[in-house]
């Protein structure tokens, strides 16, 4: 069967089985390989995308479940230039191998959407569903704070 999902503002129609996970639909059918698979138990958060503006793990949603909804991936986040969180991640050296980065950025944006002025502890709690093996998280927490500052400055 064909599945149609709005991804990054564009309708994507591709043949897929009912059991196809959203992450595999995005990667294999849409060619959006910025979203990664890091585990098989919904623990690592490498596959985090937005569903109707909120962060979800695309490995625990079937593609068919998202028909009629809008998906945003890392490729769609900075479509008009870098998002402040993307910018802060490089400026604060908040990534090393970069495999967790797409999901980590999506979760960070979601966190700031919901809480524009998070404390360090709130950032840590907000990123609990994303595992990074390289950075020790120190610079990731820093990057989220730096991004918050820029967003609040720009929006003020």
């Amino acid at each position, binding site marked *: 069967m064909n599945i149609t999902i709005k991804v990054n503002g564009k309708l994507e129609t591709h043949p897929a089985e009912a*059991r196809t996970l959203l992450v595999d639909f995005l*990667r294999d059918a849409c060619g959006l*390989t*910025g*979203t*990664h*698979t*890091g585990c098989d*138990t919904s*623990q*690592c958060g490498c596959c985090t995308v*937005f569903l*109707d*503006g909120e962060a979800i793990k695309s490995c625990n949603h079937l593609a068919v479940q998202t028909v009629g909804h*809008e998906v945003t*991936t*890392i*490729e769609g*986040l*900075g479509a*008009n*230039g*870098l*998002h*402040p969180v*993307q*910018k802060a991640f*490089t*400026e*604060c*050296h908040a*990534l*090393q*191998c*970069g*495999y967790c*980065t*797409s999901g980590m*950025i999506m979760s960070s*944006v979601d966190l700031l*959407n919901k809480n524009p002025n998070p404390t360090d502890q709130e950032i*840590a*709690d907000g*990123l*609990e569903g*994303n*595992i*990074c*093996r*390289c*950075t*020790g*998280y*120190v*610079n*990731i*927490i820093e990057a989220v704070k730096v991004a918050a500052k*820029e*967003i609040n400055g*720009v929006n003020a």
Partner: protein
Amino acid sequence: MTTLTKTDQAPQFSRQEDLALITGQGKFTADYAYPEMLHMYVIRSVYPNAKITKMDLSAVSASPGVKWVMTAKDIEEHGGKEIPNAISVTTRAKEPQKVVRMPILAKDWVHFVGQPIAFVIAETALLAQDASELADIEFEPYDAVADVQSALKPGVTQIHPGVEHNLSADFEAGDESAVDKAFAQAAHISHLTIKSQRLVGNPMEPRAVTAYYDKEQDRFTVHTPTQGIHGMQNFLGQATGLSVEQMKIEIQNVGGSFGLRVGPYSEHVGAIIACKVLGRAVKWVGTRSEVFLSDWQGRALTLKASIALDSQGQILAFKYHDYTDLGAYTSYMSSFIGTRNLSITMGGVYKVPALYMRSDLVFTNTTPISAYRGAGRPDIAYAVERMIDFAAHEHNFDPIELRRKNFIKPDAFPYVTANGTTYDKCDFERLLNRALELSDYSGFAARLSSSKEKGRLRGIGLSTVLEASAAGNVQKDQVEGQFGPNGVLTIYGVTGASGQGHATSFAQIVKDELGLSTEHVVYLASIAGTKLIGNGTGGSRTLYGAGSAIKDLCIKLRAQVKAVLSKKWNCAVDEIELSAGVWTQVSNPSLKSSTEEVLKLFTSDELASLHALGETSSGATFPNGCHVAEVEVDPNTGVIEVVNYTAIDDLGKVISPVLVRGQVHGGVLQGFGQAFMEEVVYDQQGQLLTGSFMDYAMPRAGAMMNLRNETVEVPTTLNLLGSKGVGESGCTGSLPALSNSVMSALRPLGIDQMDMPFTPYKVWTAINASQKN
């Protein structure tokens, strides 16, 4: 949808590598796709020790979309060999180690849960997986050997024919009789058994391979996470029986390696054979479950350590008996870890007149072991520093003063240890003093009282550690540099990054040496057909290995630029100077140009003539550090919080301070993971109990909020750059510092030794038991 305003200001990129990775444009192995590509699934053993009595895969073969089901027989028929063993040792009796290499696919016997038995290749990954469920395989299970201590017991199951008592080798280093003499004269002796438990390295990108065969050129293109193209090519040659020249390794991004990705696994061999036989590209992408089951695991060492002191606290000798769990087979670096990497620095940062280590390398029915971040270096540092701390408390010495008294003094370098290792220049006292200052060590008593008022326990602990970084398997590190018509310098090398930011550090070296701005430097690690030699990433060596070769390249290019420039400026070559990125003519100082301006004067032919080979031979270096950890323990729950962590590291000359900080953060946090939560658990029958992130805990954001780190530069003269390497230092310093701080908190309750990981349950149980006594 996010409603946030897009940023207007251009970012200050920390690294060249970042733009692709923050926008989802990176390219990892699973991201490579070919037309008509086939997919592979692996059927694995569910038993730790069993005879395969029946294997009927006909239903799998007949399943929709299946193209080929490969068994051990197919691997043999197509010339496949075994998983390579990179290092073997000699025993105490000067006999060769008993090496048992892992077959690509198990033939008639399986030796660990997760061992590959068959490859199923089909049109899609799901069809391959569906088909594999129809496999009819019968096993006759036997008693398994789940851990080292049971493996050595008399009468226990012998895993491999010809390997009595499951002992692959008993290695030794140092002088046992000198050590025994020292112990006989000692005023104080302490004994301590420490365990560095088995871990899963868990890079975030699971293992994967995509292979494509070009019939016309008789050549394979292999996309896979690797630590360096040469290591992967050579080991692929050994494992497949094909020639190294046929292997073209091509990869853009690697999602972490930590020592696990030196060479191929079984799946690489399967994909390579299948892509040629079937004439279509073959891809295998492992799951996290397969990472837990079948990535080489790390650590798995038990060290019985003893220390002899005179009445004044002067160290007389260290003695160790190590037990290294090899897992079911000897694979890659496993025999290197418990031998060279432990013994080479077994005296730590101390002047120890007599040293001896015996190390038993033992087979068990578990996943094979290989290198994981430090590969023995953190483990020996952990043993030395736990032992010093333990002995200080047992015999009433101040743990800091005991260390100070026994430090190798700055004027004693180069220092030759009792077992023959030559340490390069270090200054342990300076690092210790800075760490004590930055951690406000002297203010601990006050912080302890305030914790007590809250009903908490508090502890502080430190480590003064040193490690020997990799000497390199290949004698030389070579790089090749070529300027293009646009003034961009392209550097070709063999070492591949997996998050370290090689391209950024190398560009920084070029900037420092040649004045060329970093955006005019490109580093390429995976170019086919390169005749360069060099070492891959591993043992913290890329920066001082390949980095020194880049410095050599820059020195040669500088001379070439001067020669061309002298014609432009009509002066002698030695009239031209380059300083702080500015080229000047000595007799006419008003003539000043940046490197970019100079290169603009050159014709495209002149630019093309700027080409050189950089090469250096760089041996092991000795990164060292002093880490201080402070913890607070809730006695009601056993939960431990690291309230302060200070890392002072001497990494020699630092090239990229931002990247160095990041490496230390990551290393310290991997040490945190080992200290507080990570542990591979097998039950007594050899079944893996920690098979996912659900039951193998990983450090999460906020694990350590107060981590401060600095470097103290004591440049080495052992390489051209003066750098010592940073990749493993965070892990090496943190295991003992964290453990000593936990013991400091629990010691008032009479608890003076506990094995990692210090989980809340374990800590709570110990506290509870101590209070009952």
